[in-house]
């Protein structure tokens, strides 16, 4: 049962993610990304981490994607036109495209090799095989063992936020 669900969710996730980059309409890309996040959340549930699954939906599929949708709607781009102009010719010509294809292929081979070489199925730590990660466990880990990293991340996000506001703000005189 779990295996069947895993393969269904994994297939949905991979197909949706591929379709995200294949869409001309940005609206559909955003929606497919939400589908992909939903499938990922299902995978978390299968791994026995319902808390992470719920957070995945709330933060990514809920909050962040609404913002994406908001921007797409505000700009109201119906479909993405093929770019024109000097830079487009520079990057989109036959030569650069072939060069890009070669680079992509090299990256794919490299990744495949790396995963093949180093990613052996690691044994599960004893006693944690199917036990679901409770909120308490995650909380103590996050706020005791990794407290510094957690706080540093939040400060980093705050800095990024302030920076983007400063950059985007226009002085009215």
């Amino acid at each position, binding site marked *: 049962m779990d295996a069947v669900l895993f393969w269904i969710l994994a297939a949905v996730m991979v197909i949706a993610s591929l379709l995200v980059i294949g869409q001309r309409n940005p609206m559909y890309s955003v929606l497919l990304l939400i589908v992909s996040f939903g499938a990922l959340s299902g995978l978390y549930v299968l791994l026995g981490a*319902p*808390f992470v699954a*719920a957070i995945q*939906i709330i933060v990514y599929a*809920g*909050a962040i994607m*609404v913002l994406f949708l908001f921007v797409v*709607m*505000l700009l109201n781009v119906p479909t993405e036109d093929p770019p024109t102009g000097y830079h487009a010719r520079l990057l989109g010509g036959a030569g650069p495209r072939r060069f890009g294809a070669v680079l992509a292929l090299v990256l794919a081979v490299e990744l495949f090799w790396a995963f093949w070489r180093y990613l052996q199925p690691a044994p599960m730590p004893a006693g944690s095989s199917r036990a679901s990660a409770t909120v308490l466990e995650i909380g103590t880990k996050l706020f005791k063992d990794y407290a510094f990293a957690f706080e540093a991340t939040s400060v980093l996000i705050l800095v990024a936020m302030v920076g983007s506001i400063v950059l985007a703000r226009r002085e009215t005189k």
Partner: protein
Amino acid sequence: MDRVLLAQFIVIGFTFFMLLNSAAILVYMERKVAAFVQQRYGPYLVGPKGLLQPLADIIKLMFKEELRPKAADSLLFYLAPVLSATAAFAAFAVVPFGADTTLFGLLDRPIHLAAADVNVGLLVIFAITSMGVYGIVLAGWSSNSKYSLLGGLRSSAQMISYELSYGLSFAAVIMLAGSLSLHTIVDHQAGYWLGFIPKWYLFVQPLGFFIFLTAGVAETNRAPFDFPEAEQELVAGYHTEYSSMSFALFFLAEYVNMVTVSAVATDLFLGGWHGPFLPTIARWLGWQADSLGWIWFLAKVGFLLFFYIWMRWTLPRYRYDQLMEFGWKWLLPASVLNLLVTAGVVIYMGW
């Protein structure tokens, strides 16, 4: 088939059936309360006291023509109302509405009176309600009409602004109860202080309750926060272009969302199915003490729904900038303060 499993299926079916009916009852209630507020009679011709009016409304909606603007995105246009209604129903799945019961001794072990008992129930509700906004936003975008688009934009902005306060008011209750499961949270509210004050979180968290209700009204797009469909400015907002059953689905979703928010408020702040008198009656009849708890639950949810409707027909709509100012400058700081004070009390009193 296993008896307990069968009973659980019946509970799930019953929940769905009651939710569907609650929308019909709410339509009637809304029209009657509105009439009372405006000193009219309201519906009184269809059935006794106009009780069959919702049925007549549904039949009318079903026989209307299904219209679609020519330039609309047809897939998303039809997907949007379905998404809205699905999210509304799915959110209720983890809300318990009564104590564990053996159905008066029919079963050998008690079952939960909820479609599903999830140990992160509160987060699931939060996650699914945050999905509900997509229905409205997509409806606004795919209709290809300026009023719809503005309604959808407003809706997403409003949801993002009020979801924060909404979540933080949850968090304070979670700290008090030490659990994310709604069932456990309700069980923490059993009993009395000084023998007569019920141990409801309403009395510990009055500010939290206020924030929850306000943000809940904003999340469900009801007056005085019904900006996505503000009729004076936007005709009908996100559902301007919808007719017939697609429109009915939005309507349904709105009422079911109201029921969900009221039910969650009851579970979080009003003690769920705990209350005075009924345990005494149940014991007198020889049943389990909390076997009649669902009556309390229904009464509390009913009162909150009445409050919702009462508010809609009493308060005028806010101005849009006031909505944003209230959400970000008042409600959010208040909820953060509430959270901090609660955390301090929890640590020092050792609750």
